[in-house]
């Protein structure tokens, strides 16, 4: 029976990581439902961008209060994950504070002390975030589009992180008091626990302390596994997907919209006086069935756009700077990403159930995103500039406009007029091209 702890630990560990791997593979499968896009150029620049924006948090600090608090939570999270290694080894082999034997006395003291300080910063961060979100009334965090699950989700994340850090401190304090009583070997330095919490714990008996230490350790471990598996259902996926999203980000100037190659071919043929419009395709040429123009559903978006939808943490920085949203129009770039993810998840569940996608009579366009939202966009790029992890909601809006115009001819009437003018008069207004130089003689 003496190995029962280790066995339970192993089962939990394998189940936890196994489930998480399953979730990740589902996300990967869903993202691959999108169109392929080549974003593997300029590798050096991509690594640099990822290091600067995702690891270096360079865009987060544009809003200093949220930026610095986020930095606490982020650095704390990254470093505390080193502790996960220790937990896993201790759990499997029944050792106690395994890293102390590797790090040596003084470095292990430094390591544990750093962890304690970071854990305290994380607690400060999540508490302030909780207050900001629920009581302080930051507009972008209290908008109607976050009612329901997005709001609960955000709060759950903060509560779980708070609970995990508290368990961490409980474990350390019990350990430290036991060390002082000579009941556990002396490993580590705990500046926060030994000063603030030890006075309370000093009153506890040895057995209570042993139980507390163990219980907190198990809670901490199970909590991490739970949190990891919770990610899939949460906006919190950004802690993983921010990295690929920044790596695959659009490196072009923001004003550069892509040119559809399928259209270029058509126009070139149209403009070529020698082209035979009735000619059969050349022998051996690929049957060039033009796919849809623009995007009607998630399948028509590219894989980076779908990755973006999973990466969005719904912070709303995009929406808070969107000129359309500021002036009370229906468009919210954040909501475009949230709806894209919702639809993609729905498609994923459909595939899980049926083995392949079976038409459910729904589309991203109209069923999720309305025309009114799409036509309110000024393509000003404020949203893409504001996003801390370089997501691109504008490209999704733009692709859906393309679908509305090129597949459905469903542009607002005034725009149809403008496009006709461009086509016939070479200007968006109904003027004669021959009058183009009249200004010089006015």
């Amino acid at each position: 029976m003496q190995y029962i702890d280790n066995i339970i630990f192993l089962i939990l560990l394998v189940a936890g990581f196994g489930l998480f791997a399953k979730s990740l593979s589902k996300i990967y499968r869903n993202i691959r439902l999108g169109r392929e896009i080549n974003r593997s150029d300029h590798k050096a620049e991509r690594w640099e961008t990822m290091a600067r924006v995702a690891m270096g948090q360079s865009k987060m600090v544009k809003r200093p209060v949220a930026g610095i608090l986020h930095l606490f939570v982020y650095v704390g999270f990254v470093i505390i994950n080193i502790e996960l290694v220790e937990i896993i080894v201790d759990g499997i082999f029944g050792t106690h504070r395994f890293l102390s034997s590797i790090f040596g006395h003084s470095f292990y003291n430094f390591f544990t002390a750093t962890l304690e300080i970071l854990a305290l910063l994380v607690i400060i961060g999540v508490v302030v975030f909780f207050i900001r979100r629920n009581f302080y009334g930051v507009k972008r965090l209290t908008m109607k589009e976050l009612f329901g699950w997005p709001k609960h989700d955000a709060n759950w994340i903060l509560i779980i992180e708070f609970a995990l850090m508290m368990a961490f401190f409980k474990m350390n304090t019990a350990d430290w008091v036991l060390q002082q009583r000579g009941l556990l070997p002396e490993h580590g330095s705990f500046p926060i626990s030994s000063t603030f919490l030890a006075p309370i714990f000093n009153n506890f008996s040895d057995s209570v302390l042993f139980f507390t230490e163990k219980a907190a350790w198990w809670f901490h471990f199970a909590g991490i596994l739970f949190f990891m598996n919770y990610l899939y259902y949460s906006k919190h996926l950004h802690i993983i997907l921010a990295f690929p999203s920044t790596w695959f980000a659009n490196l072009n100037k923001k004003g550069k919209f892509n040119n559809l190659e399928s259209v270029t071919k058509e126009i070139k043929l149209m403009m070529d006086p020698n082209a035979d419009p009735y000619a059969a395709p050349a022998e051996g040429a690929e049957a060039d069935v033009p796919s849809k123009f623009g995007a009607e559903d998630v399948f028509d978006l590219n894989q980076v756009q779908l990755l973006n939808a999973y990466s969005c943490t719904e912070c709303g920085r995009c929406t808070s700077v969107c000129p359309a949203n500021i002036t009370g129009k229906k468009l919210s770039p954040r909501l475009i990403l949230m709806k894209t993810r919702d639809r993609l998840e729905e498609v994923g569940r459909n595939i899980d159930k049926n083995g392949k996608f079976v038409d459910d009579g729904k589309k991203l366009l109209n069923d999720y995103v309305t025309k009114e939202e799409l036509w309110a966009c000024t393509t000003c790029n404020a949203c893409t500039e504001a996003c801390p992890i370089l997501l691109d909601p504008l490209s999704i809006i733009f692709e859906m406009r393309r679908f509305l115009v090129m597949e459905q001819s469903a542009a607002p009437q005034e725009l149809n007029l403008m496009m006709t003018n461009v086509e016939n008069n070479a200007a968006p207004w109904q003027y004669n091209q021959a009058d183009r130089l009249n200004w010089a003689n006015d």
Partner: protein
Amino acid sequence: MDFNIKTMAEYAAEGKSPEVLFWVGCAGSFDDRAKKITKAFCKILNKIGVEFAVLGQEESCTGDPAKRAGNEFVFQMMALTNIEVLNAYEVKKIVTACPHCFNTLKNEYPSLGGNFEVVHHTQFLKKLMEEGRLKIEGGAFKGKKITFHDPCYLGRANDEYEAPRMLLEKLDAELVEMKRCKTNGLCCGAGGAQMFKEPEKGNKDINVERTEEALSFEPKIIATGCPFCNTMMTDGVKHFNKNTEVEVKDIVELLAEAEDL
């Protein structure tokens, strides 16, 4: 008429080519307000002796509004036609006073076969100033409060924030920045083909929101670098009945005024 305009066709007939092609754009050609910007720019170029040409009747819309509205067909039809004309004249360098033309020619034409050096008029004038060809006597605007509204398609879309500001600083005016400026600039509301349609329903129009911000500094002049921003801000100023107190002017108009052109 106190300026001199030649077309590419005229240059070609003489067997010569100008230093730069001035891409006037639809607004600059047809819109009464924007024509003044076009003329001011030509006057400055004339004065310092820059040899430039326009396409005149051979110019057409770059296709920008059609593209942003989602009509890739019309966009590419315009783009490929324009590229044929530009390549036939062997154009190397283009300057334009419209950030939308600038963006499209610079970023979206290359992959369709149109490779030109494209600059915005503020970038062009900044360069001329650095080369010593353009000299601006400050003074005319001394002490006047000016605020600059960043056009999205010059600023965020192409990362140019400095050139317009450098020109404005030369005017000796008091340049005040709005809270939402440079990368955080607020759109005038005209981009993405919005110029050509009624806005969607909301609490207010975007240009009103933007003008309100500009007016809160009580400027004498709201400076712009885009004919569409100019229209939107002018409308905004009228909305607040401030059109007798506050002027909306393109940067080249201010420069031409400073030089008494």
